[in-house]
């Protein structure tokens, strides 16, 4: 750890993993690809051992996954994953591990749905904005609890956000059953009152050859990605945030109030997390009910790691995850448990992080070889005895 690195960027594993120390050129691309191939291999072995044909299974998935309708589903899932992963990534860039995205987006979604269903006397587009704002504010507030506990009581955000996830589950169940819930017609599901039609976000016909449409809020996801990049790389705040993540002592010396940064970073991360459920809510479900997608926050963690907390990398990772999840649905018809995808995802994450580490070590070794070669070629310094 005490090697000669630049004084500000500590060359630790976390910094490399989080993309704060750049991996050069083709290696940055090769590492995740190799890891994915490795994960596919292991998955194939698992399939073979449990008596399923690996190649045919893979073929089935690719064939089903490239149908237009499935591609729409893939993009839709990826939109949700992307926003959730951005929320996680923002925390990561500051060494904050926000496991609480899961609770934050669920609490935000039910409050936003309730606001949308409340029948406010507003024009449709304005109400849509109010819904989004409500979601952001709720997510931010829920995350602020963990931020404040970390800054002022020293509670590890890892543990507090996990606890807050469980509390969120109870809170959402309580709000759904006792406060906002109405019976959904024709089922024993309960949900919030549906959002009025003029506040819904219409879908986009991006993929030709199918009736299904991609969530309109995919545009919001893209905008969030750009905003993420600008905020971190083009503003004073982003600089402070990255410095705090890289080297806290340096940040303090540079006049950064770390406690304040912790709270603000958690609040922004929670605000983004609050939006994670919105494409689903405003583009498809229109109300929060018992079958609202769960577990987005945990998926977001895996995707943020895979995409190295970089908005572009996260986009690829989100699409890969969406593809795996949706294309696996066909396997049920062929008596292969769809859970094989979760094994593949787990192995992918583990092997990707190991691959990044190995690539990094390879690079260091290569540099050292280069340096020692150059030193050997140089003439011996004057006065040095042979």
């Amino acid at each position, binding site marked *: *750890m*005490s090697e000669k690195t630049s004084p500000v960027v500590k060359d*630790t*594993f*976390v910094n490399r*993993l989080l993309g704060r120390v750049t991996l050069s050129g083709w290696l940055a691309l090769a590492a995740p690809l190799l890891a994915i191939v490795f994960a596919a291999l292991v998955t194939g072995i*698992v399939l073979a051992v*449990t008596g399923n044909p690996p190649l045919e299974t893979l073929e089935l998935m690719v064939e089903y996954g490239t149908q237009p309708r499935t591609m729409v589903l893939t993009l839709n899932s990826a939109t949700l994953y992307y926003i959730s992963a951005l929320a996680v990534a923002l925390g990561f860039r500051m060494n904050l*591990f926000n496991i609480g995205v899961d609770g934050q987006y669920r609490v935000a979604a039910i409050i936003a749905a309730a606001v949308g269903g409340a029948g406010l006397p507003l024009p449709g587009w304005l109400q849509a904005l109010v819904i989004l704002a409500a979601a952001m504010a709720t997510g931010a507030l829920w995350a602020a609890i963990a931020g404040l*506990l970390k800054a002022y*009581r*020293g*509670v*590890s955000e*890892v*543990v*507090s956000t*996990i*606890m*807050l*996830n*469980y*509390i969120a*589950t*109870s*809170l959402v*169940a*309580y709000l759904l*059953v*006792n406060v906002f819930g109405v019976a959904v017609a024709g089922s024993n599901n309960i949900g919030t009152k549906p959002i009025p039609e003029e506040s819904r976000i219409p879908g986009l016909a991006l993929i030709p050859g199918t009736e299904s449409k991609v969530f309109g809020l995919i545009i919001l996801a893209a905008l969030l990605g750009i905003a993420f990049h600008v905020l971190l790389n083009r503003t004073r705040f982003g600089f402070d945030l990255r410095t705090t993540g890289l080297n806290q002592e340096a940040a303090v010396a540079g006049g950064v109030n770390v406690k304040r940064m912790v709270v603000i970073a958690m609040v922004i991360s929670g605000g983004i997390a609050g939006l994670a459920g919105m494409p689903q809510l405003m583009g498809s479900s229109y109300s929060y009910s018992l079958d609202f997608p769960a577990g987005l926050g*945990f998926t977001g*963690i*895996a995707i943020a*790691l895979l995409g190295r907390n970089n908005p572009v990398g996260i986009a690829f990772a989100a699409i890969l995850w969406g593809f795996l999840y949706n294309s696996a649905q066909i396997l049920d018809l062929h008596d292969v*448990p769809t*859970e*094989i*995808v*979760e*094994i*593949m*995802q*787990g*192995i992918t*994450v*583990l092997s990707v*992080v*190991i691959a990044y*580490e*190995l690539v990094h070590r390879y690079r260091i070794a290569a540099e050292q070889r280069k340096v020692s070669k150059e030193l050997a070629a140089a003439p011996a310094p004057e006065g040095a005895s042979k």
Partner: protein
Amino acid sequence: MSVTSQALAAVKKPRKFRLTWPIVLGGVVALILLLSITRVVSGANDITSGGTMAAMLAAAVPIGLAGLGGLWSERSGVVNIGLEGMMILGTWFGAWGAVTWGPWMGILLGAIGGAIGAVLHAVATVTFGVDHVVSGVAINILGFGAAKYLAAAVFADLPGGGDTQSPRLPSPGTFSIPGIGEPLRSLEQTHIFFLSDLAGVLRGLTQNVSWFTLLAVLMVPLTWWVLWRTAFGLRLRSCGESPTAAESLGVNVYYYKYVAVIVSGVMAGLGGAFLSLVAAGIYREGQTGGRGYIGLATLIFGNYRPGGLAGGALLFGYTDSLQLRQGGTSVHALLFTLSLLVVGAAVYLLVKRHRNVPALITAVAGVLVFWLYQVTDSVPEQFTTATPYIVTLLVLALASQRLRPPAADGLPYRRGQGH
């Protein structure tokens, strides 16, 4: 000379709080007394009943085992967020072993299942130097997916099984301390102040206790003895405090970290097997319900000591068990206990520490809690399930700053980095 002795005195000054047997016993009696007062005032008889105490023990065991797993791993300097995934593997492997070869093989296989996850974690963190939290999260995803896949592949074809659950599992059996069950029960039913509560506690802890529970409880002193009373334990802990110093004294740090992480997985796997074999009697998807994480939390607020984490696990198990025993009423009664505790803390702050403002704030909080107790009759069921998590969060918020994790916990270590 006098300077040195003064310096020594200054070093020794921070009052060293040592937990001795009289203090522990006194604390337990005080706790029962407090609950007894609450029971008499609120009429919520279930808060000290034998049934609740038995449920508390059963709920505390898996969390305590996960916490012990965390203790082993973190004492060697490896953060183990992957306990949850290892525990999930334990539930499936335990169920599979029990269905195929009987309960005791189930316990063994549960431990092995957890150890498989732990080997992965050790390879990633110790050999490859991957960040501990990241690897742990990956293990959790993997463990969850693997258990789901395996359950669908194996249990679906068994009679009584399905994609997400196993057939009924054989149980490892129970024992009771003979001759005291009936007298305690009748004493408990008289609802006498304190005596009945004591009877309830004793009955819950001595009657119909699973052998697996006994095994798990014994792990606490065993862990303490190995880690704090043997040379092996000293070396293992030195890896968590200062791996470079340990290395300079000839300790093979990688080896100790591997052993620690694998034992950690064994503990978590046992916790998982307990859930499927004893607590539920069946493997069910999502059975762990985050107990691996909660084990980690009890480890933290137990200040990385076996006794502390056992206490944390019991506290958690207690609040967890209440939801099954007239949840709304019992948790509501606990509000009264809480208000007593908070007001007690306020008096302590005022009289002993002379901190007037914090004392006032604490007192107001206590009065608020009491007011809440007065104006409500029962706590909605959704919140009784959240009680353990809220309690954990509160305890951490109050205690976090006094805790001391191992000095090199979670830091990357490469062999020879100290040179």
